[in-house]
């Protein structure tokens, strides 16, 4: 391998899945046309292409890190005024590229069995491939415009996949909700990118960064704020988080890939990529940290009261990304990406495990109707156990080190102790809800209606085993671990243990007292069950208030102005045509008719000669002859 490099082929990392998506788009229906016998071909083709993409990504990442400067860039032509566009491979994009392709491959394989009962799988796998391709473009882009293209692409892929079961009303609505909320945030992001291009004259990261060094504080704050709003939308941060729980209407592998491991991390990536802006904009960074803290706390508390297993995990995702935002806000970009890395493994594993449960229970998602499943589903139980340990940040598991890195960094920020305290409290909630899920689903007595329950096949469990290995080992990235913060490590270890103990005590040992406690704290319980009334607030204020008012105003404007304009134009045309009709009838028609009338009138004497009787003609003939004869004779 010395001297040879396949780095110029890095475009294959997004190119292969894009090829798969194109194949499914153009030939998918031809391959998989019979809804009663779903074809396995789309799954196999698309999984293979993503696996190949991962292979390319892995080799390229390794070779790029061998290069001096650890970065590699291919440049194409000029696109818009965005400077030379191309692909950039550096440690940041390499990490995400490997995560996307790696977890994407595992989830593709898992899906071939999980989705095997569904029809039209070419749409599903085509969408998954399209998503992987767009996400690779997003992270490999070397400028903001190309990043934005990928950004919108993943939004669209997300819409396609959430609404995969478009026959169900909720799935269609959830897809639209995700799309619309993301659009609202993306509008701010477009403004931010346009602002950057306007100021820097290019969208290329390097160009913007070198230009930004000379900008005024106001410009930087403005640009960073716009980008932050975009990142909040994609990463489901409070108050734009409401689309993510609804996105759980999509198939579970989609939730695992898109709504936990990769797409929602795009916002974190964007801020990390724009760190040159955010590190110069302390107010925006502070806002990022505050938003992250609020999100982490709110989402974790809601997850405590959710009964739908996927929604618990969705709120958990929101909460964990909140942690990453805290890290970004305090300037700990490496800690944020470290947590992104570990979170991707344990959260996708949790979703795949949840999918395995749902698959085995014929689509049952309510935790209240699960229980004691560790006996029937030992493999799923083992991997979920590991993933929950990682989520609860038990020492030694992946989530522990990364979350600890974030909490340790908060103290470097001004007033960082606030973030630290709230973060520790959120960690406690995290441990509780993670293990509440485990105790309800896997321990205690069986509450499911289906019996017996069967473990999922190897095609589904093997990807989960692979991920669980990363959940254990993924945290031991020694250069990123700061052992000097050992008191904090001990504290968070104790907190995790307390959380698990509380969940065990409350949900398993004394379930009878739970009802009494729920009654006593019913206002709080109701508040959490209604998700802090945020969704209701949106519905009341935005949908029924602003949007309804705007829509009815627009309808009135439509009626009064546009319709009246159209009707007025019609009235005017009628009046004008009335004049023309008069002219037509009396002038043009009159001319035509009078000319024909004149001919008729003038020809009347001559016409009367034409009797049609032979003998009249003969008589005239003879008379004429006699007249001529008489004339000559008498002359």
């Amino acid at each position, binding site marked *: 391998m010395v001297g040879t490099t396949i780095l110029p082929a890095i475009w294959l990392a997004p190119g292969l899945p894009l090829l798969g998506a194109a194949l499914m788009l153009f030939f998918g229906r031809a391959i998989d046309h019979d809804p009663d016998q779903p074809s396995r071909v789309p799954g196999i083709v698309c999984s293979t292409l993503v696996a190949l993409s991962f292979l390319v990504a892995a080799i390229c990442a390794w070779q790029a890190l061998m290069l001096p400067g650890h970065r590699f860039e291919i440049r194409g032509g000029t696109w818009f005024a965005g400077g030379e566009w191309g692909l950039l491979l550096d440690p940041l994009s390499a990490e995400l590229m490997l995560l996307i392709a790696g977890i994407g491959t595992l989830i593709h394989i898992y899906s071939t069995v999980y989705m095997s009962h569904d029809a039209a799988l070419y749409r599903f796998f085509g969408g998954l491939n399209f998503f992987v391709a767009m996400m690779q473009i997003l992270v490999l882009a070397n400028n903001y415009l190309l990043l934005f293209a990928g950004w919108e692409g993943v939004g669209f892929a997300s819409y396609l996949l959430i609404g995969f079961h478009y026959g169900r009303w909720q799935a269609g609505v959830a897809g639209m909700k995700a799309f619309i909320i993301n659009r609202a945030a993306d509008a701010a992001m477009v403004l931010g990118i346009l602002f950057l291009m306007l100021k820097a004259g290019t969208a290329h990261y390097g160009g913007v960064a070198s230009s930004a060094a000379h900008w005024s504080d106001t410009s930087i704050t403005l640009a960073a704020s716009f980008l932050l709003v975009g990142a909040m939308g994609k990463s489901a941060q409070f108050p734009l988080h409401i689309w993510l729980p609804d996105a759980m209407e999509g198939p579970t592998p989609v939730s695992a890939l898109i709504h936990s491991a990769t797409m929602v991390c795009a916002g974190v990536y964007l801020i990390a990529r724009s760190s040159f802006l955010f590190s110069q904009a302390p107010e925006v960074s502070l806002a990022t940290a505050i938003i992250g803290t609020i999100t982490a706390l709110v989402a974790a508390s809601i997850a405590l009261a959710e009964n739908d297993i996927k929604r618990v995990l969705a709120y958990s995702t929101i909460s964990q990304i909140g942690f990453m935002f805290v890290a970004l806000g305090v300037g700990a970009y490496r800690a944020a990406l470290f947590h992104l890395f570990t979170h991707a493994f344990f959260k996708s594993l949790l979703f795949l495990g949840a999918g395995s449960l749902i698959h085995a229970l014929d689509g049952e998602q309510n935790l209240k109707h699960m229980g004691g499943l560790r006996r029937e589903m030992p493999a799923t139980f083992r991997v979920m156990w590991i993933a929950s340990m990682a989520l609860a940040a038990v020492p030694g598991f992946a989530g522990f080190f990364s979350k600890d890195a974030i909490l340790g960094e908060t103290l470097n920020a001004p007033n960082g102790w606030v973030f630290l305290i709230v973060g520790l409290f959120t960690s406690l909630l995290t441990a509780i809800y993670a293990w509440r899920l485990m105790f309800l689903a896997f321990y205690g007595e069986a509450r499911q209606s289906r019996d017996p329950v069967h473990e999922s096949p190897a095609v589904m469990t093997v990807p989960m085993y692979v991920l669980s290995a990363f959940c254990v080992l993924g945290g031991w990235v020694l250069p990123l671990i700061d052992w000097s913060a050992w008191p904090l490590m001990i504290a968070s270890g104790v907190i995790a243990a307390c959380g698990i103990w509380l969940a065990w005590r409350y949900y398993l040992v004394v379930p009878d007292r739970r009802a009494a406690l729920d009654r006593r704290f019913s206002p709080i319980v109701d508040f959490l069950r209604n998700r802090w009334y945020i969704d209701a607030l949106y519905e009341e204020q935005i949908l029924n208030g602003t949007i309804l008012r705007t829509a009815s105003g627009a309808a009135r404007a439509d009626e009064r102005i546009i319709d009246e304009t159209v009707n007025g134009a019609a009235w005017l045309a009628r009046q004008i045509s009335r004049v023309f009709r008069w002219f037509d009838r009396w002038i043009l028609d009159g001319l035509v008719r009078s000319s024909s009338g004149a001919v008729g009138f003038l020809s009347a004497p001559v016409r009367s000669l034409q009797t049609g*009787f032979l*003998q009249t003609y*003969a008589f005239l003939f003879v008379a004429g002859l006699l007249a001529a004869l008489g004339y000559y004779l008498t002359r």
Partner: protein
Amino acid sequence: MLHAISPIHYLVLSALLLVIGTVGVLLRRNIVVILMSIELILNAVNINLAAFSRMHAQIQGQIFVLTVMAVAVAEAAVGLAVLIALFRNRGTVIADDLDLLKW
């Protein structure tokens, strides 16, 4: 006493025949009769030609008579053929009923 027959007698006979023929053409309604009246006109001309031929002692007039007779025979044949076709189509040989030429 018997007067010699002079050319003037022939011309008077010819004129009478011509008038009878012309009046027949103009007044009779049956086409068969009209055709017969046309024959009268032609023969009035023939008498004229023959009379002048004899008076001037030249043969050309009599040759013309024979030519006119041949043409008259042909004319009668064509005319009767037209008449039969007409009768088959219209069921009549009365001239007043055949007024399609009217404007």
